[in-house]
């Protein structure tokens, strides 16, 4: 065990998977000598060389579509996009090809690639550098979507993502990159891509969040000083969703708040609430509340903290549900 931050945990997972499997290659802008804009791939070019840590031309669509071809032909490309806002042109290739090559080839080809995206706001970054886009990806048939929240789960989830036979979008909570350190085992381990984690058990209310919102939720709940017995769920994987963990918890508590950073309308939280309504409606003591961003473009840094859900808004929603 070593204490490390999320950047170090991902770096270690990449290094170990590359040592273990020579078909794993890294592709992206500035991932080589420079070590990536967030330094996530630091040292890997020095260890594995040009042919496995590949600085590509500046072309996100090129990166993902070439990676699809490489994956079909036997490689395991782990691609990186520098910031979430630049992943949007990749949706065409993800939707039309990565997610349906298996189907289109009648199961003869599959696309074992990973797309790593630094995700979300909160680091005072420039325009288009702070977007929360999970809904775009979870809506694509054939793609898995993973959203780690801290160093430990990031490492295990990335290993599973690289080993997974299907395309995985891996959303790295960039505001957490260097914000927390955790004990992370040196040896490799997998965290399955269909398991949520009950971070804290409770009996009054269930609070569900993923990615960077986990940290905010935990801090918010700490401020309540044990006022309620709160169950916290960290989804870890958004697609496929671990519905059992969610439903079992809501059935037990009868109350629920969902927290998402993305804009409200059609956000992933809406999917969670629909699932709860389908499977646990009769156990509910109160309507499920969602705390979300607003239906506006992600504000520039001067206003981003007014947009991103914070402890006040989360605790207000908890109170609303508890006092229903």
């Amino acid at each position: 065990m070593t204490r490390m931050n999320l950047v170090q945990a991902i770096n270690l997972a990449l290094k170990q998977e590359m040592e273990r499997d020579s078909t794993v290659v890294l592709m992206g802008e500035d991932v080589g000598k420079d070590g990536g804009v967030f330094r996530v791939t630091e040292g890997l070019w020095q260890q594995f060389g040009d042919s496995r840590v590949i600085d590509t031309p500046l072309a996100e669509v090129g990166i993902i579509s070439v990676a699809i071809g490489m994956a079909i032909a036997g490689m395991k490309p782990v691609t990186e996009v520098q910031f979430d806002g630049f992943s949007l042109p990749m949706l065409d290739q993800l939707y039309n090809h990565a997610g349906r090559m298996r189907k289109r080839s009648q199961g003869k080809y599959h696309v074992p690639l990973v797309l790593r995206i630094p995700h979300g706001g909160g680091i005072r970054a420039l325009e288009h550098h702070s977007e929360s886009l999970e809904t775009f990806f979870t809506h694509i048939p054939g793609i898995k979507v993973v959203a780690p929240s801290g160093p430990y789960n990031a490492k295990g989830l990335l290993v599973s993502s690289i080993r997974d036979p299907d395309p995985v979008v891996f959303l790295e909570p960039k505001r957490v990159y260097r914000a927390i350190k955790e004990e992370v085992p040196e040896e490799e381990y997998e965290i399955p891509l269909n398991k949520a984690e009950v971070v804290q058990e409770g009996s009054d209310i269930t609070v569900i969040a993923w990615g960077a919102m986990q940290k905010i939720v935990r801090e918010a709940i700490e401020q309540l000083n044990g006022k309620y017995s709160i169950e916290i769920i960290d989804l870890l994987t958004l697609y496929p969703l671990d519905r059992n963990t969610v439903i079992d918890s809501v059935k037990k508590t009868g109350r629920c708040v969902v927290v998402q950073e993305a804009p409200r309308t059609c956000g992933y939280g809406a999917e969670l609430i629909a699932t709860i309504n389908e499977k646990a409606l009769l156990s509910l003591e109160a309507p499920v509340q969602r705390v979300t961003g607003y239906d506006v473009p992600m504000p520039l840094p001067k206003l981003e903290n007014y947009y991103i859900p914070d402890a006040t808004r989360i605790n207000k929603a908890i109170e609303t549900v508890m006092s229903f």
Partner: protein
Amino acid sequence: MPKNDIRINFELFQILNEDGRIVNTRDMPQLKNDDIKRMYELMVLARVFDDTALKLQREGRLLTYASLQGQEASQIGSAIALQKEDWFVPSYRENGVFIARGHPMDMLYQYWAGDERGMDKLDSINGLPVAIPVGSQIPHAVGIAWANKLLGKRSVAAVYFGDGATSKGDFHEGVNFAGVFQVPCVFICQNNQWAISVSRKKQTASETIVQKAIAYGIEGVLVDGNDVFAVFKVVRDAVERARSGKGPTLIECYTYRMQNHTTADDWKKYRSEEEVERWKQKDPIERLKKYMESEGIWDENYEKMVWDDARTQVSEATRKFESVEPPSPLDMFKDVYGKLPPEIEEQRKDFE
């Protein structure tokens, strides 16, 4: 096998050499002394603005900032070759062009401090907002130029982008449209040799960027981007060609990014001191100064006046930028739609 000659040599167009001597009198544009001084003064102003931005960033008063140093001739030379009615479509590194077109410097600082109001009033300079997604602005310029043509306007669109941007589909699609529809668009690629840590050579196997013009059937010019006279001449000619209905031009300004990619970068990780030192010798401001001195339109007094004046303007802009009231949080709901839909109206009320 047919024998095709596919090697194309573009000669680097230069007027003012590194020693500040005119090496191409035939092409030297007719410039009055005051025009030349204006070029010099704007280049100095851009540099002082930029130096101050780097300082403000270090002090935590700006966010990530992309320096234009080394590219003053490309930016100022091209900016003043445009008419007021022409459109300006920037990437994120064109603060020099913004300044030359009259966008207030305090508002530029405001934008780079993460305040969207810094991009207000762009309609008064016919400019689009800073575009950070690399290359994404290129086809917009083509559309603007095309609309101008269809609407019978005389205005031309000039779009700026880097060497890295030419790897993106947006570049190829934009230039191709421009060629097919013969729109009055001027593509200004500031090839500063680097896209963050990726060198020009690793960006494309083409010998030059400008040769891509051939593939799309449009005019192309390779110009010394540190030579303000050459850039001015080439851009002015391209703008006039476009204006007179003769179609688009791709211009490659061969220049250099003297500073880090942005304040979040460290160039020592991927390029050599020698390389940076070599380009320092080609400094666009020094070069023009030498020329002006030899022409008798530069002396120490003038030099002091120019820099003092630039510093005064920039400190005035800094003062203004720092005294601006913080934006209202409710601004985030502003300008999302012409008329706010009920969903957002409700969210806005919740917020209050």
